[in-house]
Structures are given as structure tokens and as C-alpha cells.
């Protein structure tokens, strides 16, 4: 999988109430959730983001609730992938399970808002096209790569059940 998009930058500890406020949790409709993505931290985010764009954030991205509305909202907003220094654990597993591409980079300080990144997920490569820089990506453990390759947890489970 390969993505190219503009960077929208956020800080540390971006929580699930900021990604999708609880007042919108009475629906699962992707379009509706996508329209309110990041609303409480960056009003109008969903209007300015373009398909393929990339969220780049600091530590502990997605802390807080277990709501998968967060992944649904991010995907529906058009964001292709989230890069962070670290992810909160439930956000991490939900992204793997639901097929939202996430990438961990140790230090995001060199990436600026508005930069264009090219991400090659399979190779674990992130290239900053604006700066002509390359970043080292944390490689997923094999177990997790397997879930990603199968297309998410439910497909992985079906394969597993099929086998045995």
C-alpha cells in the first residue's frame, strides 16, 4: 500500500474525545462521523482535509476511549494514514483490527504541517517529498503484520476458522 498526502500536524496525547467528540457517538454513519473528525481540536478539519492526507502527531495518539468511531471518523474524513511517535493501546489495536494504516516514527519533529509525505506501508518507508528526507519506521511484529495482510481482524479470524 502506498499513500501520498499533505501533513496535518498535532501534538502529544490527542484523545478520542478530540478525534470524535462523544456527542456524535449516537451514530455509526461514516459520513456523519467523518464530518466531525478532529472537530474539537481543529474546527473545520474535515472541510480542509483532502483525500489521502496524513495526520502526524506526537506521543500517545488516541488515548482515552475504546470507541472505534475514532477510526471510522478518520477514515471517512479522507485521511489515508496516521503517523505518531506512539499510540495509545486501544487505538493501536483498533486501527490494526479495522485496517486504518498507522505508523510509529520515533521523532516527528522534522515533519512540518503542510509537508508532502509518501508512505509505502509494505516496505515500512516514509519519505518527506517537501524536504527530501527519509524516516525510520518501527516495523510491526509479525503477528500484527499477519492481521494487516489478511485485511483486518474479522478476515483474519475467518481464515483461522476456515483452517481449523
Amino acid at each position, binding site marked *: 500500500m502506498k499513500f501520498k498526502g499533505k501533513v496535518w500536524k498535532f501534538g502529544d496525547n490527542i484523545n478520542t474525545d478530540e478525534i470524535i467528540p462523544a456527542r456524535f457517538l449516537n451514530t455509526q454513519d461514516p459520513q456523519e462521523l467523518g464530518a466531525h473528525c478532529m472537530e474539537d481540536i481543529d474546527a473545520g478539519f474535515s472541510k480542509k482535509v483532502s483525500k489521502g492526507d496524513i495526520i502526524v502527531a506526537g506521543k500517545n495518539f488516541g488515548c482515552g476511549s475504546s470507541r472505534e468511531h475514532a477510526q471510522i471518523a478518520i477514515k471517512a474524513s479522507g485521511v489515508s494514514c496516521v503517523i505518531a511517535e506512539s499510540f495509545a493501546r486501544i487505538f493501536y489495536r483498533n486501527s490494526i*483490527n479495522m485496517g486504518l494504516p498507522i505508523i510509529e516514527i520515533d521523532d516527528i519533529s522534522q515533519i512540518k504541517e503542510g509537508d508532502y509525505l509518501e508512505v509505502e506501508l509494505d516496505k515500512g518507508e516514509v519519505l518527506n517529498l517537501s524536504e527530501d528526507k527519509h524516516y525510520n519506521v518501527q516495523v510491526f511484529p509479525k503477528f500484527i503484520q499477519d492481521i494487516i495482510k489478511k485485511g483486518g481482524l474479522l478476515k483474519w479470524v475467518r481464515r483461522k476458522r476456515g483452517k481449523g
Partner: protein
Amino acid sequence: MTITEKILLAHTDKKSIAPDDFIYAKVDMALGNDITAPIAIKEFESTGVKRVFARKKIALVPDHFTPAKDQKSADQAKLLKKFADKHRIENYFEVGRMGVEHALLPEQGLVMPGALIIGADSHTCTYGALGAFSTGVGSTDLAACFITGCVWLKVPISMKFVYYGKLAPWVSGKDLILYTIGDIGVSGALYKAMEFTGPVIHDLPMDDRFSMCNMAIEAGAKSGIIEPDGIAVKYLRLVARRWPLTARKKILELKSDKDAIYSEVREYDVSKIEPQVSAPHLPSNAGPVSKFKNVKIDQSVIGSCTNGRISDLRLACKVLKNKKVHKDVRLIVIPATQKIYQQSIKEGLAEIFLKAGAVFSTPTCGPCLGGHVGILAEGERAIATTNRNFRGRMGHIDSEVYLANPAVAAASAVKGRIAHPDEVK
């Protein structure tokens, strides 16, 4: 091995496990609510699988936006009810017979030491208070578990927190956990298991232990756990659905080994800890209540899966008895379960709250996550016994939440500003 590693190992077919191993573990109880279960149900149904793995091992609790706060919420809750009926899920709890999930499940005897429990709710880590491994997952995990009865997990390394000394008056489990999160930060235990121990912990009543394990997630942890002891056994005897003769012995044997490996051990002398308050907008912004005495409030909320239990309400009433809520403050009290609600009436607690001029509501997660029953307006400020004070958590994006224990929340409601319980005379 730690108690966490032992429980996880017992739920796999492996001979040994170590931190960072990936395991595919059997689940004893899988929980969903009216926010997370609808997604899981849709995903489950999309796979075409006809039956759930075990109808007795699923709990569905419509607690977040119920009694349904609006049309869409009613539709979500209905999805749970329909699914529960179709699959004859025993542990579906209807409004009027329910409670906030993490207070309800232990009370219903659905949490036993050594069990592996997952819940599509981040505060599922609460059940570690009874020596279970429990962790919050997403709706997709829940859907997969409905099919397979299993969950994938990375075995967490454990961090040990030892508490010793003598608790000052009005200092509770809530204060210990706020203090601890203040010490290590909101990602201080990221991906790890927090094991709480020491003489202070093993003296704490169960309700305080639930508060502590409940907030392990606020330090980024996968789980929080306390080795079950005599106090846990006493609680379990009252609520357990089955009580085999060997239960007590087995429960008390469930412990970390002396040579268990921890990533870190932290010790706290609790004698120096005052009641804590966590300032906006992170649970880790903790400090002694005395530091916040000039902070005026518009609302005080006592309730939630963190502090809506009977001893929390008793504590609040100790402060509120024969007092009135400040004219500029709304005090909203929400017993966490129907049983606690009834008990509050029986003990005269409800009367104290009502006489003081408080709202006394049916159980709901309600305002904790900005759902309903007490949303904050622009610029308003609340003190709450809940677990998160993220920006906009309880309402308007420019509102504020301070976290505290029930006695501090009650004292603040009387004073109209953040106050130590001793200030209410």
C-alpha cells in the same frame, strides 16, 4: 511470573509465556455497551456467522446514553436488545434493572479472580480489583470474540506500585490513583499492567480498589490488578453466583511470584498524600486539593464507573448532611447501579442529597462523557468524581472538568469552589 502473566497463561494452550509474546487467549466474559456494541453487532452479522460463542459469556449493558437521550440513542440501544433476544444473551441489563457496566458486572457476580474479561469500553480494566485480567478493546475485537470466544493480546510487562504508610482523613483509592497518574503521566504505563500492592492497598475496601484499577487506563495501561485477599473473598462471597468449596483457597493462591519480573517498582508513602484534584485537561495534572481552593465551580458530579458506588455516596453524605448546595452550583448525584440506588434510599442517603438540593438520578454514564444529565455550557467548570477531564469531555469545548474524590466533590458543591471536606463544618 506476575499474577497477570499467570492468568494469561492459563487462558492459552501454551506451556509458558513472557512479556511481549503475542497470544490468542480464551475469554471468560465479553462486554459491550450502547456505544460500542452496535458496531460489534453489525460486524458480527456481516460475517454471516449464526451463533455467538457462548451466550452466558456475553454481557450487554445499555448505560452510556440511556435512558435513551434522543432518537438515535434509542435506535442504538434497540440494536442491543434485539441482539440479546435473538441470541438469548442472559446478561443483558435493561434500563431500570441495570447500572454503569463496570459497577454492575462485579455486583452481579460476573467477575471472578483469575478470569479473563474483555470489554469494548476503555474502563474495563476495573475488574483487576478482584484479581481478574480485564482490558478494554474495540468493537471489532468484541465482534471477533462473539464468533471465536478468543482475543489476541500482547502479554504486558508489569509495573509494580507499592503503597505504605497511613492514609490521611478523606484520602481514598481515587486519591491514590490520581496521585500515581500525576507521578507517571498519562502514558506512564503505556501497554503495561499496573499491579497495585502494599499494606495500604490490602487495607482498602473493595470500592476504593475498583476506583484505582478503573483509572489504570488513564496512565495508558492495558490493565490494573490487585492480588485478591480476604477483603476480596468477603466481597465475592456476597455476590458470587457459584461458590465451590475450594474457591477461597484457590483465590488466595492467585499471586505474583516472589521472583516475578517488573519493568519498574514504585513506592509511595501515602501519609504525605492529601486529597487530590486533577486540573484540566489531563488526569495527570494532579495536585493537593489545597492548591485549587480559589477555583469556582458551576457543577459537581458524583457518580460514574469510578466513584458511583455505595461507599462513595456514603462519603459524600458525610460531608453533605444538614448542608445545602451552594446557590451557584448544580450538584448531580448518579448512583452507579439500580442496587446502589435502592441502597441509597434505604440508608437515607438519597434524602440527604435531595434535602441538600441535589439532583439524584437513575444510573447512567451520562455527563461523564458529555452524554446527557448535566452537560456543561461554554465557560462552565465542574468538579467530578469521574475519570477523564479531557477538553470538552463534559460538554462545551470551552468548559472545564476537575477530577476528585466524592468527599471533595461534595465539599466543593457546598462551598461553590473547590474545597477540602474539612472546610465544611
